[in-house]
């Protein structure tokens, strides 16, 4: 009972914090923060099931979130008709050939009875051959596709389906890649796994940044379709105009509040859905088994649990959740910008959310997501206020003061580091500790 009150109290104070923003800054900002808080919470739920329940260190959040974003393009953008005439099919064939060469070399590795040295050499040449064959096939169609109106398209485009489909597709795409990554790297020790996943997520971002035919690279894809109405259309609706009169605020503001509120509703539904599923999973025998594996791999193995498969399973599930969140984020932004995917913001910040919320507890991850995102956004004005308070008695022309004010925004990194270190030191179980079952 104590626990439930504790949780409700935490969530209430979180909502009051956001409401404060609404009253003192603007409701628009409050809803923006709220929406991103929900997305952050979904991401931290994904990490929580991996780290909190199974003890797997996944530093690849950034990559999976970006894959979710990519799903937005593939599903919802209109196809570039000329690109398919220019030989888009050859790109697909080329990539399939490369993948086949890899699969074939894996088969050689596993099945043949040659000496290890010979296998290395054969595999090396197989993959090199596959790679150059792929390059030979795809290089000229890529050039042709990227030349089609580079300022507007210059990429394959998508399938022109409703954008909301891209969320599950994003989850599936992330799950597929996570399966491959997990298959090859889950045998590694924890800190190697951390570095490997971080490295792979960087590779994913590099591909998205540079393969213009796929995602337009650094030119970004703008104008992704929305699952909710546009502000412009709302502004001519009668009921919106009536609301404007009722609340006595400008129509532009009220329309954007309606748009953001509808996003909030969809996101909340997804968050609650995922939370319910995860809670059921945690309470089930499956959840007990995962915790047993986390706490003592050797004895879980002795009890006949297949540790490798279970780890792979939970890795794929967690990554799929992150993929869904990534797709939601890109839809909310309305554009796909590969440059914005930074490990600091996407990987490490999510980890801070999980640790501070309480690893192993789903409610903890959600409150962690809310709290950390809130302070990540709000510590900029807070830092500025703090600096101007302590430098209040220094004259405005002072070089040190202007320098401090200029760099006050970076206080938030220090602040996040401090929060993480203090939590780890004095309350390593987080705000809402794991439930003892």
């Amino acid at each position, binding site marked *: 009972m104590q626990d439930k009150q504790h949780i409700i109290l935490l969530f209430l104070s979180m909502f009051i914090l956001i409401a404060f923003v609404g009253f003192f800054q603007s409701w628009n900002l409050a809803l923006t923060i709220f929406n991103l808080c929900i997305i952050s919470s979904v991401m931290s739920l994904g990490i929580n099931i991996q780290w909190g329940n199974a003890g797997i260190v996944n530093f690849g959040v950034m990559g999976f979130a970006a894959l979710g974003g990519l799903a937005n393009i593939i599903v919802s953008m209109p196809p570039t008709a000329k690109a398919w005439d220019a030989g888009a099919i050859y790109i697909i064939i080329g990539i399939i050939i490369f993948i086949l060469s890899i699969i074939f070399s894996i088969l050689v590795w596993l099945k043949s009875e040659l000496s290890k040295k010979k296998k290395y050499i054969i595999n090396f040449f197989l993959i090199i051959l596959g790679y150059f064959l792929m390059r030979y096939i795809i290089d000229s169609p890529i050039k042709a596709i990227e030349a089609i109106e580079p300022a507007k398209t210059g990429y394959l485009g998508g399938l022109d389906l409703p954008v909301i489909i891209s969320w599950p597709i994003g989850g599936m795409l992330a799950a597929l890649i996570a399966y491959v990554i997990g298959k090859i790297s889950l045998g590694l020790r924890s800190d190697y796994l951390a570095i490997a996943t971080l490295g792979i997520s*960087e590779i994913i971002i590099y591909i998205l940044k540079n393969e213009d035919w796929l995602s337009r690279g650094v030119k970004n894809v703008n104008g992704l379709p929305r699952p909710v109405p546009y502000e412009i259309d709302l502004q001519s609706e009668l009921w919106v105009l009536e609301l404007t009169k009722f609340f006595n605020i400008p129509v532009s503001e009220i329309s954007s509040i309606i748009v953001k509120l509808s996003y909030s509703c969809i996101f909340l539904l997804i968050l609650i859905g995922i939370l319910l599923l995860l809670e059921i999973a945690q309470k089930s025998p499956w959840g007990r088994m995962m915790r047993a594996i986390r706490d003592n791999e050797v004895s879980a193995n002795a009890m006949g649990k297949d540790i490798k498969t279970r780890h792979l399973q939970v890795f794929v599930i967690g990554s799929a959740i992150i993929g869904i969140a990534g797709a939601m984020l890109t839809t909310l932004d309305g554009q796909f910008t590969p440059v914005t995917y930074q490990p600091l913001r996407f990987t490490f910040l999510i980890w801070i959310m999980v640790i501070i919320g309480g690893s192993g507890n789903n409610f903890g991850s959600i409150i962690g997501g809310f709290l950390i995102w809130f302070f990540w956004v709000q510590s900029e004005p807070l830092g500025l206020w703090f600096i101007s308070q302590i430098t209040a008695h220094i004259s405005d022309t002072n070089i040190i003061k202007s320098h401090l004010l200029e760099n006050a925004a970076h206080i938030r990194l220090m602040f996040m580091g401090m929060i993480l270190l203090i939590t780890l030191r004095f309350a390593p179980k987080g705000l809402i500790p794991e439930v003892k079952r």
Partner: protein
Amino acid sequence: MEFLNSFILITNYIIIPGLTYGSQLALGALGITIVYTVLRFSNFAHGEFMSFGTMSTILLTWVFIDSKIKFGTFPTAIIVLPLSIIFTIIYCLLVDKFVFKFYRQQKSKSVIALIVSIGVMFFTGGLIRFIIGPGDKNFMDGERFILKAKDFKMLTGLDEGLTIKSTQGVTIILTILLVILLFWFLNKTKTGKSMRAYSDNQELALLSGINPERIVLITWIITGTLACVAGTLYGLDKSYKPFTYLHLVLPIFAAAIVGGVGNPIGAIIGGFVISFSELLITFAYKKFFFYILPDNFLPDGLLQILSTDYKIAVSFIILVLVLLIKPTGIYKGKIIE
């Protein structure tokens, strides 16, 4: 003659940049390896320690330039290096005292220490940006080149020019000196030997009367020195931006792991493996073949294996490959559970 030209081309675009970047990576990887073997965790904050060292060098350089202290054509940054090394060491020791020491005494799992180091990374990154700002800083002064392409062409009469920047020369020489010093310390001095003993078997080392606090102190002194020098050299060579040092951590980890974590020689080899494969894979070989092949055999295209945009991604690809094929690295390193 044609052969000589192609050789100079390779030297100019691959060998010298590779040696420079490799040295910077090797120094960074040495720092990570030493923390890993002695203190037993992967230190993600190492990139920020390097950044901190570079920042102190830059601030000191500004002070020196402001007070008109000059040393001929020698870069001021190298002159102030000993001072900034001291600052970096002090910072490392402070971080250890307030953060890492607790987890060492608790005998926490290495994963926990890794997450703690991410906290340190955030804090240090914020501190650096707060002090010096996030912008680009160029702090190289003095003579820019040891050898200019034009002079080289005049001297030898070849078509290809060879350029050696003074930052490249300084990097390579300083790295050689530092590595010799480090290996002399680890292998010949009593303190170095006790440090290796401590990293091999803590209990046994404690029994034979080695003071663990002293070992930790020396570890941070070495790490701070390596971090500061590596960071400064990288910053001198490519201009300093706090943001890039976060991304530098991964190639450095790649170097340490490829060489075999926990093995100092491995860290150095790993640094060069990473830097040379980055350059070799993204180099456009067209001009090289232009010199050695007859004209009608010359193929179209740039003859590039991967586009230059993927330069840094190459190090991650190698890292992943090594982790898959041989997780212990080229030289078998230490495995800490």
